[in-house]
């Protein structure tokens, strides 16, 4: 691993100042960053530890109520705290499930909510510095396009990158219309604040796969806000993977349905494991609303969700797998 400077500022103003230096990475859990630093995919000159910020401001690592019944989740909160929280389990089962189906018990005790939505792709070519990769080294080419691409994305790809976004949590957050609160450096002490819709937070690779989010260098995620959504009390995160546990998704679906009098009044659908970003499918939601919750309705929604999917040599199976995953999730959530 390359040497680096380590600092652990005690205030967010100091953290923003430290984060303004070029080639700086913030660290909280370290489960993704330390791994990538060992591989020398990440080679920061400065690492700024955000954990001490929670000592000054507990809300950065805890869950608090928002007006109207939503929850504000501190960005430094470990995944496990959020996964087991009774309010999260009751109001947003899909959110708790997306966390518990991700990683392992040890990793969930370490990894933070803010870090989770920033985690990098598991594309093996991105993780191998010997291989060309447009995301890691812009302009060098994409090794996955003609390489082994079984785990890669079928939605939102470009000719420059087909890497899958690996986060389960971000899929559930996209379905729930969550927003990301961000502190940005500025002239005022403590900086300014802005909020970003979860569905706008990640960007498609296009011609610049090195850009993954709209977050600017030096900005700090302070919280993730999940608005009230009463029908999300009946929601589900279904994850399909190569082994029963502790694996990234081949396909996943976050779904919530509001069914009354035999009709779907409202729905939320997002897919994971198949997109270059967490894949909210408004097309699938439109295909559901106003219809009866039947197998035929669910299948048509699945077809709508996968419209425009582009398969490569080894991942064509994902098109049908994602459809079946979505159909099963919808079937189970109304059961």
């Amino acid at each position, binding site marked *: 691993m*390359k*040497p*680096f400077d380590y600092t652990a500022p005690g205030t967010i103003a100091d953290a923003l100042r430290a984060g303004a230096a070029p080639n700086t990475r913030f660290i909280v859990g370290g489960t993704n960053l*330390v*791994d990538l630093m060992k591989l020398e995919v990440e080679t920061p000159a400065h690492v700024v*530890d955000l954990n001490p910020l929670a000592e000054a401001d507990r809300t950065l690592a805890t869950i608090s109520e928002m007006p109207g019944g939503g929850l504000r989740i501190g960005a430094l909160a470990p995944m496990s705290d959020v996964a*087991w929280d009774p309010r999260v389990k009751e109001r947003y089962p899909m959110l708790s499930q997306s966390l518990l189906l991700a990683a392992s*018990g*040890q*990793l969930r005790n370490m990894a933070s909510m803010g870090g989770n939505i920033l985690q990098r792709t598991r594309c093996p070519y991105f993780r191998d510095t010997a291989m060309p990769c447009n995301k890691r080294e812009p302009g060098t080419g994409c090794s996955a396009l003609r390489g082994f691409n079984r785990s890669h994305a079928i939605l939102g790809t470009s000719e420059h990158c087909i890497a899958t976004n690996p986060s389960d949590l971000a899929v559930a957050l996209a379905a729930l219309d969550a927003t990301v609160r961000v502190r940005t450096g500025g002239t005022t002490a403590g900086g300014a604040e802005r909020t970003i819709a979860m569905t706008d937070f990640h960007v498609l690779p296009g011609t610049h796969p090195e850009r993954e989010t709209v977050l600017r260098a030096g900005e700090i995620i302070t919280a993730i806000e999940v608005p009230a959504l009463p029908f999300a009390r009946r929601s589900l995160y279904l994850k399909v993977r190569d082994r029963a546990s502790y694996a990234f998704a081949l396909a996943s679906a976050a779904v919530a349905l509001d069914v009354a009098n035999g009709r779907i009044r409202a729905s939320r659908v997002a897919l994971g494991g198949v997109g270059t970003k967490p894949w909210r499918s408004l097309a699938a939601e439109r295909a559901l609303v106003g219809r009866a919750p039947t197998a035929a309705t669910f299948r048509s929604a699945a077809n709508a969700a996968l419209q425009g999917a582009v398969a490569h040599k080894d991942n064509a199976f994902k098109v049908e797998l994602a459809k079946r995953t979505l159909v099963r999730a919808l079937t189970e959530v109304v059961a």
Partner: protein
Amino acid sequence: MNTPSTPCGIGRACDDVSDPPRAPDVGAYAPHFELTDRAGHQISLSELRGSPVLLAFHGAHWDPAWSESVRAYNRLIADLPGAAGARLLSIAGEGTWQSPLFEDGALDLPVVCLDGGPVAEQYGVAGVAAVFVVDSDGRISWRHVPGDASPTPNAVAPVGASTVSSDDAADANEPSATSREWTRRRFVATTLAAAVALAFARRAARAEEIARSIGGSAATSSSELASAVRLRVNGRDLTLELEPRVTLLDALREYAGITGPKKGCDHGQCGACTVHVNGRRILSCLTFAVMQQGKEITTIEGLAATAGASGDALHPMQQAFIDHDGFQCGYCTSGQIMSASAVVREPWGPADDDVREAMSGNICRCGAYPGIVAAIQQVRKGTSTDSNRGRR
């Protein structure tokens, strides 16, 4: 062998104070000293006359990882027939060195371990690692100081091997009192000295290089500097000189000599490195040690104590793994047990499948999973381990 010389202070004035003393040669009298050991006992070299004394200087730069070398040294002593009785009189430094490492039995072979204090200056080895064997007459009979040829078994063996006798009865046939000194005890002393020089002093030399590189840091990027990192591990405070890039796992294993946490994949995929931080299970390979200051770190070595066990008593989860054969090769076992002992505090459901899901971050290539699940269920259900043992 060099001409014996009288040590400074014994029949000779110490008038050359301006020159730092040179390390005494083989054959020279060992400079006299007095010191206080950790237990507050006064020790003087003259009191130790009558048996060989081993003096080990570890240099100014301290590294608790040397405790590994001492453990190897202890095993060596245990393995040498008739050599029992070596005793560590003084332990410098900190951490694991504060525990007596030798049984307090016969006093055949005092071993004095010193840091870079006044005695080291007296011996001309301030700040460096060195080993001396003082014979029963108070003369240096063997030494290794920086600049001497590398100590190797071949370099040492002729001293002992040519004169050693297999037992004390044979010593009586030796022609003179001087040569009778080259007996089993002296052989053991020399062998142990070589062991220290080979293992312990080698580590010390490496640490000196690091110390020198820190001293000459003007041209070095500050990011390459190690700094003092204070960790609380198994209820004890450790101060380690670490670069920020040292993971908690490497700090524990390579710097603190705490090797219970295992390095399997080193990428967070196998769980062998699992430890507790503030009571929660984490992967020590994916966090930097510098980030874990001020927290309670528990490794398998300290797990039993967290359950109130004392001495050699086991944590209930350790006992359950034994009861149910929850391991084969054992490499993943410390991680499995650390993970399992935290899982019982997490809000998982009661089923075996819940245990499998909770434990999915711990991989066992031997496939001991059925025993592991049974062990965890035994602890979760509070099944008596006594009745389990009774059935075996």
